[in-house]
């Protein structure tokens, strides 16, 4: 619970940082790696709740496009956490460590792409609709149309985010692996007890 509170505070501060300099920091470049790392650190439902909640709060604070990352990412994170719990048993120690070092950046890339796709679609001007349900459905269509019609701008914006997010996530991942090796992660130990590895 203490770890959860500390992580919630950290995520809150990250949201403050991103809102303090919106013109210097692309949206989600710090928050997404930290939220993914928080979920990987806790490895329980609280981690998934914190991860989803900060993405949702970020979208409410800056409601650009659809909250695609907040809708889809919790399921991805849950699937990832459950899968890594099982797959960790197999392979040599080196290969497990190597795959572990890649997991967090890959997740960050995936969530960042979802986040940027929604932002990219918001700049696309479609026909006006008035009904709330139509608006939501229409935004999904706009999302696909925008990605097809202007992929260059989407790639540039995503690259701008990833240039900060990926190195940051690599550093966080190294910290996670180190803390695991040094026995600082009690939750992982609990997971090992559960899965028997």
């Amino acid at each position, binding site marked *: 619970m203490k770890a959860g509170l500390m992580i919630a505070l950290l995520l809150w*501060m990250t949201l403050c940082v991103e809102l*303090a300099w919106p013109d210097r920091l692309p949206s989600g470049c710090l928050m997404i790696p930290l939220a993914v790392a928080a979920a990987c650190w806790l490895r329980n439902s609280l981690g998934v709740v914190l991860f989803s909640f900060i993405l*949702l709060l970020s979208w*409410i604070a800056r*409601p650009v496009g659809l909250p695609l990352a*907040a809708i889809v990412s*919790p399921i991805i994170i*849950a699937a990832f956490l459950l899968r890594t719990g099982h797959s960790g048993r197999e392979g040599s120690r080196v290969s497990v460590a190597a795959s572990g070092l890649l997991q967090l950046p890959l997740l960050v890339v995936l969530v960042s792409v979802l986040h940027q796709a929604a932002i990219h679609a918001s700049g696309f001007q479609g026909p006006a609709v008035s009904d709330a349900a139509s608006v939501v459905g229409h935004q999904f269509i706009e999302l696909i149309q925008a990605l097809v019609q202007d992929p260059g701008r989407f790639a540039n914006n995503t690259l701008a985010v990833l240039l900060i997010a990926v190195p940051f996530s690599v550093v966080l991942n190294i910290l996670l692996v180190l803390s695991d090796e040094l026995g600082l992660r009690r939750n992982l130990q609990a997971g090992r007890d559960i899965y028997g590895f």
Partner: protein
Amino acid sequence: MTASSGCNAMRAETYRLRMWLTAISMSLLSAIALVADSCGLLSGFRTRLHDSLSPGRLLLVSLGNVGDAADGSVERAEGQNARQNISDETANDGIELQYQQSEMQRRQLLLENARLRNQLRQQAMLQQVDDLVTTNSAGFDTGGTNSSLHRFLVTPARVISSRGLADSLRDLIVDAGKVAGVTRSELIVDGSGWLLDKGTDYQVSAGDRVLAGAVVVGRVAQTARWVSLVQPVTDPEFSARVQLMRTSSQGQFFGAEGILTGSQGPSDSGVDADSECEIHGIPYTEAVSVGDDVVSADINGTNGPRLYFGRVSRAEFLQGGQWSIRVRPAVASLQLDDVGIVRLDLNLPAPGSGEEAKP
């Protein structure tokens, strides 16, 4: 041993189930938030969220400013080289800025011309009255001072969140709230120009930089301690008294007055339906034409500086004997970063200044 492994399997199953339930619940919550936002139910929560984030954000911004000041000496040393590089990159921005400034100047000149023409007309009328009526006005004390009971202040604010591009502007959150004295229904203007309630009557001479006619962005809808929510001019619930300003061969004239309201519904033309306003209450006997400028008639019922709303994009007769007028708001073409909040303030004389009313 078997009991232990069975217990572990059950715990693993519970863990897995809990994870999936949490993930699906959070996804559903996000989807519900999306629908709620589409219905406009999240505006109040968004204001409170920004308000709660503001102390940390303001602290970081202030720390950043301190850091910028410390780095200033180093930056000045490298300034020459940097300026050379930046000048190439900002050439295009400069052209855009020049265009915006010239457009702003044009609006100011239009307003000033119309005001002077009105003044001239009033002077002529007064002259006629003076010729007809011979009244000794020595007993009337007009005061001889230029002081007004009220004045308009502009509180600068930064836009910290918007719904996206200006064309699809729905909500806007600015970083000025109750702490800055902002209250509901105050007008928001584009922050690229300043607003003054002084003209030639106040010894402002030619050549002085007097800016007026700032573009109206919207109105404060909600205020929190640190932030305020802005209702843009295109919101259907927005309304303001406006006056048309016509450009004829003889110059600019103030025309008919009406009520401007937002209109986000689909229009018949289907072009830029999201960013149009309507003017109601102008009878068919008044002259209206496409291209007329729309300026404020008053600010919350008080006479004040003229603010610019936009330009008439369509004008048609209605069967009820009124005009159906559509306005393209000027804010739709602006990139909003800094804005100003226009506040009415009482201009009371300070105690002991000798300006108190005498019995």
